[in-house]
């Protein structure tokens, strides 16, 4: 009969290695590691590492309905068993010689009217108290609280009422409970409230949960609900209680008991067990009938009813501890984190640890945190300079933001130095932008001379478009410099081609096409090979040799350059010469790309310079300049198109030279950002875009917004402000509209609006101390009605009055000449106010007040203004 009941499982409250399985009898098991001496031959394997040994069996208590383990250390293994007839029996397992236990074992607690005992609970504080929840009886109570230490006393019960069936040892029978609760009702589940051990939460048949206080049992707090099974208190949050009904679990907060805080997703089958994890906060495990899955609900971040009524964030997971086997019951281990033992209907057990979810978070800087269980790991970028691994782009951007990268608007090329000066692509990009702007300013200067409207936009649109518009190319065959021999190399000239060369940086603006200044600058930078090759492409072998010699004799110079110079000097245009033959084969062994292309140029057939044009180690600008000089009108656009597409594909910023700041350029930048994530460079570069369409491109706007967010996340608020100023200069449409208007208390007109609407009064907004020079602003009344403006809560001066020097730190007077302090002083004159209590005053006063106070400076106002401002207590991490 009782064999049909499914086994349940209980962990010993104090012995982490013992548990009891109860079905028709009680079986005590000890769990240990596999292979230890304790685990003997008869041990049952519970998992790969653990096994259980059966220590004792107790079958003295038939008709078992519920079991509760005595909560204190001593007596060690005392169990209360609730029976089908409502009797509660104390019993023990494997503790025969424990004298303390002996007094209690066998003691019976008998209700007046027999009916099933549904639930038992020991009082967590006064462990003599045992609450039993029974089914209903027409004339009896359903909750009886027994005192296990009470002795049978004949006075308490009349002798005639002692016709108890088969109780020979009546000394062990107690019939008088300490308390009786809940008449005419059944009690399906109950628990003591840990916050106050005199309080008891009962769940009854008449669909209610009720809290009784034993000190005054006539009063109760109750709520109607169907969820009256398995009430259990969250051990980590003692106001949180779970209860269930069929497939639904309700979570209650005892502080707001009217309705459940939330209910969990309903399960198709009725629940059989719901248990809070004792080792992990806010984790609830549930089991439904005939299921092989234990569902876990992580409500660590679930809202409390005190806060806003937001959607609960509960993470639901299912675990399958023993594959296909149906689970009869489970029990959390009392101390080992997330561990449980499950038992199947055929008593097969398995030991199981729920793996903790891993949560991971990036900080706004480059560190990464992840948490698993009670472990928290941090991963930060090693800050050892010159490490093998390249720095993360976020770190780079942060450093660049600090070095004011992008903000040099006069000498644009310098921005690559601000970026660290190590990235060739950034170098090329900023030089390109520099040349474009430089050339543009030249055009603007001689605007009167020529009609240049179309040229302006052409400069922005990149060499690709410049070349396309090319017309009137002239071909010439120049001589090698310093020699009369004409070369068989054809050179091409046109206005557009020379513009392209200017953008490449080979020649400067103006009518002279001298490459010499460029060579000089290259020599200065020690780029000997590059200088030599540029000289050579300009058909000046002598100059090339000279450069190479110079390079060889320079400090730390490469003596091999002399050898190259020697080889160069032997140049002959004879097609079949030994020199030509050797050079064309040996040049491939040269490590330096520029030396390589020099010989490639000298040994190639006229008109076919692929060895130069497709040498990817040579800078794009040099290859493009070369192409502009030596490719004809057919070859050139084809080469440029091909190169452009190649650059766009790989997101190489050198390609900006070809695409310019056009849609094409945005495409190229897009693949660059996709590859690197460098929204900073993208934002600064594209703000220079020629047409509004480029800046308005959603991709560009996205980069800009992301960069701003990034600066905010780093708390680089000053940098962000700087960026916004920079942005609004280049893109006036991005200037934000005024978001705050100050209106007069009396006439209701905006004091700033009235200024701008009545220009004849000649007053700007600045006169109110909101901006502009503080010394001049003396207007302290509304321009509309002439009534005074609000007063600062601290200095009691009207708005518009500058902050007097004596307030605050008192140092502002001394350093008034410093521009930085001046700026600060201006900010101090701004008016600020709390959006909650509407009190305010000079920003400087408010800041210094809230440095020492938490409440509003207006007396009797208890508003905690600064704490309402979520960012108010954050410090910027960049310096002004």
């Amino acid at each position: 009969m009782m064999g049909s009941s499914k086994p349940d499982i209980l962990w010993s409250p104090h012995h982490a290695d013992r548990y009891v399985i109860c079905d028709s009898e009680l079986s005590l098991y000890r769990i240990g590691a596999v292979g230890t001496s304790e685990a003997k031959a008869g041990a049952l394997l519970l998992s790969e590492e653990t096994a259980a040994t059966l220590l004792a069996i107790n079958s003295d208590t038939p008709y078992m309905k519920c079991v509760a383990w005595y909560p204190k250390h001593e007596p060690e293994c005392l169990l209360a068993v609730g029976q089908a007839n409502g009797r509660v029996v104390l019993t023990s397992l494997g503790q025969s010689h424990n004298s303390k236990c002996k007094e209690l074992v066998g003691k019976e607690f008998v209700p007046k009217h027999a009916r099933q005992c549904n639930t038992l609970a020991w009082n967590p504080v006064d462990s003599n108290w045992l609450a039993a929840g029974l089914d209903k009886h027409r004339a009896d109570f359903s909750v009886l609280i027994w005192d296990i230490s009470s002795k049978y006393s004949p006075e308490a019960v009349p002798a005639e009422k002692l016709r108890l069936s088969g109780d020979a040892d009546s000394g062990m029978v107690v019939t008088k409970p300490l308390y009786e609760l809940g008449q005419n009702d059944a009690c399906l589940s109950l628990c003591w409230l840990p916050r106050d051990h005199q309080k008891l939460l009962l769940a009854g048949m008449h669909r209610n949960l009720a809290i009784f206080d034993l000190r005054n049992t006539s009063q109760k707090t109750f709520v109607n609900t169907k969820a009256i099974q398995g009430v259990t208190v969250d051990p980590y949050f003692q106001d949180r209680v779970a209860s269930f009904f069929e497939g639904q679990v309700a979570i209650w907060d005892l502080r707001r008991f009217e309705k459940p805080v939330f209910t969990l997703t309903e399960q198709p089958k009725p629940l059989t067990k719901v248990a809070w994890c004792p080792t992990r906060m806010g984790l609830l495990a549930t089991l439904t009938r005939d299921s092989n899955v234990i569902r876990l609900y992580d409500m660590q971040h679930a809202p409390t009813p005190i806060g806003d009524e937001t959607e609960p964030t509960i993470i639901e997971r299912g675990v399958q501890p023993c594959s296909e086997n149906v689970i009869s019951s489970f029990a959390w281990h009392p101390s080992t984190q997330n561990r449980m033992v499950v038992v199947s209907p055929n008593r097969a057990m398995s030991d199981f640890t729920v793996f903790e979810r891993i949560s991971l978070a990036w900080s706004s800087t480059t560190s990464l945190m992840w948490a698993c269980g009670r472990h928290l790991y941090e991963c930060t970028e090693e800050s050892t300079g010159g490490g093998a691994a390249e720095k993360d782009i976020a770190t780079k951007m942060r450093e660049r933001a600090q070095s004011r990268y992008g903000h040099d608007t006069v000498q644009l090329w310098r921005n690559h130095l601000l970026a660290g000066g190590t990235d060739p692509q950034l170098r090329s990009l900023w030089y390109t932008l520099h040349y474009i702007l430089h050339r543009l300013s030249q055009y603007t200067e001689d605007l009167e001379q020529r009609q240049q409207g179309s040229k302006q936009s052409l400069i922005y649109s990149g060499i690709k478009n410049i070349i396309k518009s090319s017309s009137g190319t002239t071909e010439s065959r120049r001589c090698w410099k310093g020699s009369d021999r004409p070369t068989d190399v054809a050179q091409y000239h046109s206005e557009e081609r020379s513009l392209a060369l200017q953008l490449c940086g080979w020649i400067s603006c103006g009518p002279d096409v001298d490459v010499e200044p460029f060579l000089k600058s290259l020599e200065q930078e020690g780029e000997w090979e590059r200088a030599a090759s540029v000289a050579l492409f300009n058909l000046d072998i002598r100059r090339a040799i000279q450069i190479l010699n110079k390079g060889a004799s320079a400090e730390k110079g490469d003596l091999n350059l002399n050898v190259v110079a020697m080889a160069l000097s032997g140049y002959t245009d004879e097609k079949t010469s030994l020199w030509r033959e050797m050079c064309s084969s040996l040049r491939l062994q040269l490590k330096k790309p520029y030396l390589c292309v020099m010989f490639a140029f000298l040994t190639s057939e006229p008109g076919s310079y692929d060895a130069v044009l497709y040498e990817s180690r040579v800078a794009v600008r040099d290859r493009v300049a070369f192409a502009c000089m030596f490719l004809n009108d057919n070859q050139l656009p084809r080469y440029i198109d091909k190169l452009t597409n190649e650059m766009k594909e790989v997101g190489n910023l050198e390609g900006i030279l070809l695409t310019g700041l056009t849609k094409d350029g945005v495409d190229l930048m897009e693949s660059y950002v996709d590859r690197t994530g460098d929204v900073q460079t993208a934002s600064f570069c594209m703000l220079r875009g020629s047409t509004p369409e480029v800046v308005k491109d959603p991709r560009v706007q996205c980069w800009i917004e992301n960069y701003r967010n990034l600066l905010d996340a780093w708390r680089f608020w000053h940098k962000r402000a700087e960026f916004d100023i920079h942005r609004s200069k280049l893109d006036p449409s991005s200037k934000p509209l005024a978001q705050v208007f100050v209106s007069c208390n009396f006439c209701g007109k905006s004091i700033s609006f009235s200024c701008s609407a009545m220009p004849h009064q000649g007053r700007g907004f600045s006169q109110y101390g909101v901006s502009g020079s503080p010394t001049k602003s003396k207007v302290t009344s509304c321009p509309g009605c002439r009534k005074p403006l609000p007063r600062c809560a601290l200095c009691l001066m009207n708005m518009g009055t500058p902050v007097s020097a004596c307030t605050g730190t008192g140092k502002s007077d001394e350093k008034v000449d410093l521009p930085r302090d001046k700026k600060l002083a201006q900010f101090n004159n701004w008016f600020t106010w709390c959006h909650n209590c509407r009190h305010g005053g000079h920003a400087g006063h408010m800041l210094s007040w809230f440095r020492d106070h938490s409440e509003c400076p207006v007396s009797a106002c208890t508003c905690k203004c600064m704490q309402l401002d979520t960012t108010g207590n954050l410090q910027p991490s960049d310096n002004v």
Partner: protein
Amino acid sequence: MELHILEHSLKVASIAKEGIQICTHGLIKLAFLPSKTRCKFFSLTETPEDYTIIVDEDGFKELPQSEYLSVADATWLALNVVSGGGSAASSQPIGVTKIAKSVIAPLADHNISVFMLSTYQTDFILVRERDLPMVMHTLSSEFTLLRVVNGETVAANCSGVTNGFVKPKLVPRPIIHPLSSPSNMFCVTSLDPDTLPSVATLLMDVMFYSGKEMGAQNEDSGHIRFFSFSLIEGYISLVMDEQTTRRFPNNVLFTSASGELWKMVRIGGQPLGFDECGIVAQISEPLATADIPAYYISTFKFDHALVSTSLSMFGE
């Protein structure tokens, strides 16, 4: 105090003794296999005259229609009084006594016929569905009325039904029906539903077969054949005489600590019918006045009150 109006729509039926075989299949299903039906309320009471069945609509479908089955005209609703309070004095009057003055008498005053069913767990007061507005009107002053709808207990609204009711006639209620008291003593008990399968054959024997073998002998000795079984919302309640209890194995029946036995009082010489009101009140009011604990079980033809043995004599 709360008065719960339960969800079950109940039928009250009588099965003639000679026709019981036709119904045994359905009755066994209702009594012992609750998971096979949707029935939530089932009660079977055997008297010398017939079997009285009280069953909800889902359970009623299990019974075959036949000439032996007579069904009372109305649909009945069960009322249940919940004291709500936590602890009260331990010597609270038991069962019908408790509700005699608060429920039964006011309903009798308003001419509302009631049908009583006491069980081990509680007392059910059955009223006709059509009388419900009147019942609610009558009892709303004394009770918090709650109605069970789809398993949820909600406040019942009785507004708008106060007009047009006859004033109660507050007349003394003499006992007008003859009373008789059989000599056997009765026991009101229950058992763990889990143990039901183990005693099912015994119960079947008691329900359907024991009447015949003992019939003649019992009547001679002034014994009466009376057995009641109910399975209501999962709770089992049994009423049987002392002799029958001895047939059950030890520890199966829930015996109260005091081992109380009850004396039966049968009300009615002629079948009482369903329209006369005040019968329960006539019996229960004097009992309540004298503070005598009692159970009350109405059957198709007669009413039965069970009173505590120590205090069984009361004025006739």
